[in-house]
């Protein structure tokens, strides 16, 4: 039998506010070396008698995210207490939302092999993060509350995804949206985005919803992709062997590459949600929503369309450039600093080709690449013929490693290309004289040797020769020898 996967995703994204969700403590990204419990006050430590106060900025950022995801923003939103005991949860309950979340009924379009696909978003609600527990290895554990009370947005999709590729397309696009909106730094290593995947399988074509496995606490795209792939395979295998899938919470074992059931009883929580009596229902006026909508930045889809329209880029190239806001900004900044008439398409090729390759090799992001002004200068040098394309690529490599400008490198290393016809004529003649056999073969019809001969000339000039000129001179001298 053929099976298909049914996958829904819950994304927990930090909302990048200056202060925490319900108290004035600063939000500080976890760099790993922050002293524990330094950004804590009586409120986020859950001290007796303290009360939460809603961070208006966090609500605004959440609403903006909802609007970008085409959600409805109901006029009243409500906070609820979600009760469970854990040492990293200071109050013994988490302030979250249950009934009346901030955002409902949205969607996000993703690109798949079959074209654009719409993934519905059930809801997006606000909650506070818990602290962090450190297990010391001697049996003791310690609690760090720096993160406790940091605002989180939980974005819940419908089970609309059918493959790992769709899951990753959705997750990366959502990531890109959050970064574009400035609500999240996108820095996955710092745990600013965490995923939970709900995976079930069914016979292809069926519309049944089978018991699912809920994979908790996935901190990277890689873990998300691997764990979902594993779940799909193992569930299909179970069904094929006549087994049954029971609804279950799973953990992802990164080192073994498998999902493992989390102990059932402990996770069979009754969270006993009820409206938090400390926080009156939040009234969200239409005027406020419209004000936030008006302040939305250009989002990836709109930017992509503009790149195709205004810069004549292919859909594919435009997609590559807009996936990350910083890359798209880098591209447009480079364009604006060009002195020559280089084509926007050519600039796009530089970035999606050489710059991306070198970012990969150097293990850096776009912020580690030479600044747009320097890339523009390099492209200008190629455009005006000072250096040829291949030299340009070598210069860019050096720019990455040394941080020096294109012009400096070209001048110091004498890389400006040879466009002196007399000098090149001599070199071409020398090459032809040095390879009589190949010349004879060429003249007797083995025309593909032209490229080889061209290569010999370029080599003799250490690649600095203007290739167009070399081509012309080589053709002329070869033809002269044919008639001679």
């Amino acid at each position: 039998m053929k099976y298909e996967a049914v996958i829904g995703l819950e994304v927990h994204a930090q909302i990048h506010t200056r202060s925490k969700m319900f108290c004035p403590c600063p939000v500080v990204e976890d760099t790993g070396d922050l002293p524990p419990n330094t950004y804590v006050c009586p409120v986020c430590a859950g001290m007796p008698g303290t009360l939460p106060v809603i961070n208006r900025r966090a609500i605004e950022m959440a609403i903006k995210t909802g609007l970008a995801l085409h959600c409805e923003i109901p006029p009243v939103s409500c906070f609820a207490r979600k009760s469970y005991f854990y040492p990293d949860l200071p109050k013994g309950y988490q302030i979250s939302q249950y009934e009346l979340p901030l955002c409902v009924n949205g969607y996000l379009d993703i690109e798949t092999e079959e074209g654009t696909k719409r993934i519905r978003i059930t809801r997006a609600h606000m909650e506070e993060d818990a602290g962090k527990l450190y297990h010391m290895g001697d049996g003791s554990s310690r609690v760090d509350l720096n993160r406790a009370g940091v605002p989180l947005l939980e974005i819940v999709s419908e089970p609309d995804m059918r493959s790992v590729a769709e899951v990753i397309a959705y997750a990366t696009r959502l990531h890109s949206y959050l970064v574009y909106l400035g609500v999240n730094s996108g820095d996955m290593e710092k745990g600013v985005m965490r995923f939970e995947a709900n995976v079930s399988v069914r016979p292809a074509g069926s519309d049944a919803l089978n018991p699912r496995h809920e994979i908790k606490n996935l901190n990277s795209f890689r873990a998300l992709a691997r764990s979902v792939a594993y779940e799909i395979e193992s569930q299909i295998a179970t069904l094929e062997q006549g087994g049954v899938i029971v609804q279950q919470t799973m953990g992802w074992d990164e080192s073994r590459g498998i999902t493992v059931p989390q102990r059932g009883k402990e996770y069979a929580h009754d969270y006993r949600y009820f409206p938090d009596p400390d926080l009156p229902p939040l009234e969200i006026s239409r005027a406020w929503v419209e004000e936030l909508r008006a302040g939305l930045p250009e989002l990836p889809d709109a930017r992509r369309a503009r790149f195709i329209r205004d810069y004549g880029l292919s859909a594919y190239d435009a997609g590559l450039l807009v996936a990350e806001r910083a890359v798209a900004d880098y591209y447009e900044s480079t364009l604006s600093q060009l002195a020559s008439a280089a084509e926007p398409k050519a600039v796009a090729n530089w970035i999606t080709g050489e710059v991306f390759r070198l970012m990969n090799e150097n293990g850096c992001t776009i912020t580690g690449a030479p600044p747009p002004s320097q890339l523009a200068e390099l492209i200008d040098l190629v455009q005006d013929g000072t250096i040829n394309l291949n030299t340009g690529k070598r210069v860019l490599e050096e720019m990455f490693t040394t941080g020096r400008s294109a012009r400096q490198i070209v001048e110091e290393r004498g890389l400006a290309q040879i466009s002196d016809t007399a000098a090149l004529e001599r070199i071409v003649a020398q090459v032809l004289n040095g390879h009589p056999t190949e010349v004879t073969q060429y003249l007797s019809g083995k025309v593909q040797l032209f490229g080889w001969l061209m290569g010999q000339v370029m080599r003799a000039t250490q690649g600095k020769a203007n290739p167009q000129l070399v081509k012309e001179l080589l053709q002329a001298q070869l033809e002269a020898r044919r008639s001679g």
Partner: protein
Amino acid sequence: MELYSLTIHEARSLLAERKISALELTEAVLERILEVDNAIRAYLTLTPEEALEQARLADARRTQGDDAPLLGIPVAIKDVICTAGIPTTAGSRILENFIPPYDATAVAHLKAAGAIILGKTNTDEFAMGSSTENSAFFATRNPWDLERVPGGSSGGSAAAVAADECLGALGSDTGGSVRQPASFCGVVGLKPTYGRVSRYGLIAFASSLDQIGVLAKDVTDAAILLQVIAGYDPRDSTSVNLPVPDYMAALTGGLHGVTVGVPKEYFAAPEVMQPEVTAAVQAAVGVLADLGARILDISLPHTEYALPVYYLIAPAEASANLARYDGVRYGLRVERGDLIETYNATRGQGFGPEGKRRIMLGTYAWSAGYYDAYYLKAQKVRTLIRADFDAAFGQVDVIIAPTAPTTAFRIGEKVADPLQMYLSDIFTLSMNLAGICGVSIPCGFDHDGLPIGMQVLGPAFGEEQVLRVAYAYEQATEWHLRKPDDGRFRK
């Protein structure tokens, strides 16, 4: 006259006229505490050094022309209200060693107004109780009869006011915890409208019902204290941003044109009602009529549901509010082999029987499958109770009702029967469910010489009319001037 027996407004005049100093007054009250508190046991914590230091500062401030409303007035704070640097136990083992690093907003207001904090008064654990017997530390005695309870849960504050161990005190009222002990101890107990006084720093019992209130020797003092602690607080999202009226100005004006409602449901519960209480409150209604008030018989038809509704909502909220006492960050920790055992041992030893009973009731009432039947249903009935009062206050300015069905009962009498204990709050719960305001004032004594209290109730933010009626009654009667015979408890 002894300085400790002064009211706040009397002491204020003497201080302003420089006839007494804050230091003299504070020393007199501290000496009084030493004399009587061995018998009364109103205080859990005393802070005499800090109090004397504050008194000296108050005198210095007055020399510089400062005239803050409570400058040099010694007051007591119920131990569910946080005081920076002073232990705040909520009457529970689980917070026995807890010292908050912050003041409750109400305490900060008192300090800013120049009040002197004498110490922290006894309370039922987490304000859960009607007799102060649920304190983890000891029971407080009623100054009118040491064998009887002072009421609760603000029994320590009420007894301290009655026995002249402070000039006034803060309490908290979730279902009558200010008004019922005021009634039992023959003092004035004011429960403000929900949202009138910040709850920041009040250790939460039931967040949608809790409100800080005041215990005072007379209505004027209650108005003075309310004036200082009332107001919007950005740190409490349930406090209401309305201007604070001049409560002293509201006292005078008489009762002409005032309509007083008498709800039949509060006089028709013979099986729990002490006849002398009914008679005293009915006589008081007569006094109000004589003073010019129009009396109207009214009905609050959902009154009988207040008790069951309260005992669903309050424990439900309490079970979440008390979840933070897990031994991880502060308070008692009883270490065991693993996390779950440590939780169990800490909470098992830290909470007393009433705390545990309410945590269990609340957890049950709003677990999966019961939420709709209990919690949600209770919220709906709560809305009906609120609607009863809305309708009534469409007709009347204030409502008169007994504060408690009986006078103070004997220590130990109801400990074994929680339901009997819960019934002693039967007349005070509705106002918390409705979020309205009310004051309990003395209106007579029973055959044992125990004080009887009656409530003057007003709509939300109707403190002015409540105080005006209570003041008019007080001026026409002398109940508030009677003091317990301290020969029985003075050293």
